[in-house]
């Protein structure tokens, strides 16, 4: 029992020096009063900082000032009695759809970052498939100005690889990087043309920043709405074969290797995809990958009779062997991080027949609870590994990884692992309710989130006592 589980960290990918600014300089946040907090008696767990003990953590002016067995409350600090709870580094989500501009009826920067804060996230990256898309620095700058006023947690904005996400011409990637794009992606759509993909990878030498890829060969997914298998065969729904994803990963890994470029593969869904990433890593390709809580937790069986479009997402839920492969990939580091692919849609876009419904599900508010309930509680993965993967989404994009260590900015998630709650029962912070876990009772609830030194979320039922003058 004394033996601590061995935790293999994902191999760090060597950053490419970008022109001009660093990725971290692209983060936007409305900020707030720097927190002065004494979090007392929580079980502090941060595998990167090698902390795994019941400790007091003192935050002064937004910075972690002291971590010790017992800290005397200083003047002016709020005291959080956290005995029985767990304190983790704040989570990082490299894959969020904030839907601004153009789809504010689904989500906006304010509501989306509020959902992130409630989910324990201290840093998220917004996707660029908006309307207009983020394919020029004007759109990017206006988003950053908006986020500087509205964002409850720091947000990095991605920019498109191709103009209008049309897959035909490169955007002004160097200009966009200088304007603060943290990565490049046409997420929502693949870059189907291998020639354009190659040029984007070549151009990375100038623009820097990783290229994040939604992998799907449109010739193979053509009209597909769910995993191609027994369930789609029975329902008569057009299938998305796993080869539509894995062949593109293999293609782009070869291209990235040839051009000595860096790629990040988004939302892996199948065992073939895990194998393709593992093979690329083996060959020394600069490649990182993510998986979502819904792909780690559910299979295509959840689609059931096909009348609930909250189980429709892209890539689709696949089979149990695929799910197991994703879990193994997460365990052995083939998959670097957990990312939600939080994709809000309005009720009228989901309350329609499956084939007509929009693809995607929300996930920020349930990410930790689902992974904890379905992977940690049953003993599939150790808690420390899950915490590492929930915070590992920063490194592939050259963003700062939160660390529970003295001198670091306070990025913290205080979680009550004993708490049980029913998803959606009290509504959502997100503007949209298309959560595939709605109605499920889960364990583990975020009580408090500190992002970049600011207390950005506290659960309503959780009291903080103020002491001192």
């Amino acid at each position, binding site marked *: 029992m004394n033996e601590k589980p061995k935790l293999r960290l994902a191999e760090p990918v060597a950053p490419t020096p970008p022109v001009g600014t660093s990725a971290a300089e692209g983060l936007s946040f409305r900020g707030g009063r720097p927190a002065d907090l004494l979090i007392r008696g929580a079980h502090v767990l941060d595998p990167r900082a090698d902390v795994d003990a019941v400790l007091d953590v003192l935050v002064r002016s937004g910075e972690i000032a002291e971590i010790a067995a017992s800290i005397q409350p200083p003047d002016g600090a709020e005291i959080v009695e956290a005995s029985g709870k767990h304190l983790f580094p704040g989570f990082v989500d490299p894959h969020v759809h904030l839907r601004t501009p153009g789809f504010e009826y689904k989500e906006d920067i304010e509501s989306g970052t509020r959902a992130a804060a409630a989910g324990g996230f201290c840093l998220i990256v917004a996707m660029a498939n908006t309307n207009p898309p983020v394919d020029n620095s004007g759109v990017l700058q206006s988003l950053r100005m908006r986020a500087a006023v509205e964002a409850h947690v720091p947000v990095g904005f991605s920019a498109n690889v191709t103009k209008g996400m049309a897959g035909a011409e490169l955007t002004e990637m160097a200009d966009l990087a200088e304007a603060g794009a943290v990565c490049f992606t046409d997420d929502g759509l693949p870059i189907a043309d291998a020639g354009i993909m190659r040029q984007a990878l070549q151009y990375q030498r100038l623009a820097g920043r990783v290229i994040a890829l939604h992998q799907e060969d449109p010739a193979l997914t053509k009209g597909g709405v769910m995993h*191609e*298998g*027994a369930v*789609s*065969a*029975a*329902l*008569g*729904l057009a*299938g998305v*074969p796993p080869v539509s994803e894995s062949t593109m990963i293999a293609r782009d890994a070869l291209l990235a290797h040839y051009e000595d470029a860096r790629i990040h593969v988004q939302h892996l869904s199948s065992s073939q995809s895990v194998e393709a990433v593992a093979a690329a890593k083996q060959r020394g390709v600069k490649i990182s990958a993510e998986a979502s809580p819904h792909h780690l937790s559910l299979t295509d069986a959840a689609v059931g*009779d*096909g*009348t609930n479009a909250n189980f429709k997402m892209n890539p689709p839920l696949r089979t149990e062997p695929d799910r197991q492969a994703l879990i193994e990939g997460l365990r052995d580091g083939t998959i670097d991080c957990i990312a939600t692919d939080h994709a809000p849609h309005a009720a*009228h876009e989901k*309350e*329609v*027949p*499956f*084939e*007509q*419904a929009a693809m995607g599900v929300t996930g920020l508010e349930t990410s930790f609870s689902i992974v904890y309930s379905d992977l940690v509680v049953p003993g599939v993965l150790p808690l420390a590994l899950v915490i590492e993967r929930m915070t590992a989404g920063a490194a592939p994009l050259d963003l700062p990884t939160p660390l529970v260590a003295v001198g670091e900015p306070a990025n913290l998630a205080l979680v009550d692992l004993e708490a049980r709650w029913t998803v959606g029962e009290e509504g959502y912070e997100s503007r949209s309710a298309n959560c595939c876990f709605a109605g499920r009772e889960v364990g583990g609830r975020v009580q408090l989130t500190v992002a970049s030194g600011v207390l950005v979320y506290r659960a309503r039922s959780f009291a903080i006592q103020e002491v001192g003058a």
Partner: protein
Amino acid sequence: MRHLLGICDLSREQIERLLDRADSLAQLSERENKKLPTLTGRTIVNLFFENSTRTSSSFDLAAKRLSADTVNVRASGSSVEKGESLRDTVQTLSAYGPAAIVVRSPFVGAPGMVTRWTSAAVINAGDGKHEHPTQALLDAYTLRRRLGELDGKSVWIIGDVMHSRVARSNILALTKLGARVIVCGPPTLIPREIESLGCEVSFTLDGSERADVLYVLRMQNERMRDTFIPSLREYAARYQINGDRLGAKQLLMHPGPVNRGIELSPDVVDAPQSLITEQVASGVIVRMAVFYELLAGRGEPGSARKRATAVAPTREGARG
């Protein structure tokens, strides 16, 4: 049974009960006055989001034979065809207080969604490529009248299985009734893992000469455009059922409408082995049985049930 959404929801016993009910209704339908008072004063809405001649007329006639009032709503081509307003349409029509809504939709699962927005019984008249349960029931009914019990009988379903709701419902219904089902067609038109429905797969007609029944599906022109098949000529050469491929003791079925010269040669359509017109005639009786099972004796106060069971007892009499 509250709704009829798919054969997937039915047990063998439920299927047999429906077929037995159809048998008893068939006897009555030979009278000069074919009308039964079972559903007098009740309303049935036929909501068709797709063009259909035989299915919609068959449902309409079945409802009228049971003395229901029918409202036929055809939404194809109108704004209603868009899924966004499915809910609004159903809620509007529900205001008429229908006992049942019959739904035909180009989209999988639409009838199941309709059940959430109405208190009426919902009958699936075909949803996308998913199911067409009344077609499978009328096919099973037609076959049972010819062959008796279907246990151990072998049925080949030939053609575009991928895009066929008739195929899916028939695989389920026939296997539940004990038949062995083999689906046969070009590999591009046989969905991966279709075996999970309980059928076997063959890419050629080899062995079909041992089948009791050849159930041939309609081959649509657009499949050639989508490159599922290189040409109708090659398709016909490999899969068309003609006089040489139809045995004297084999039965031939087709859900209609037939493309003569493509999936069937003209001579076999009217051959003595062909059950195609019997299938159409069975449609009305089986749909009456479905209405009867879903509606008689429930929903409306008291008298409907007594009257109904008195007029049309099941074959065993006591089951009502």
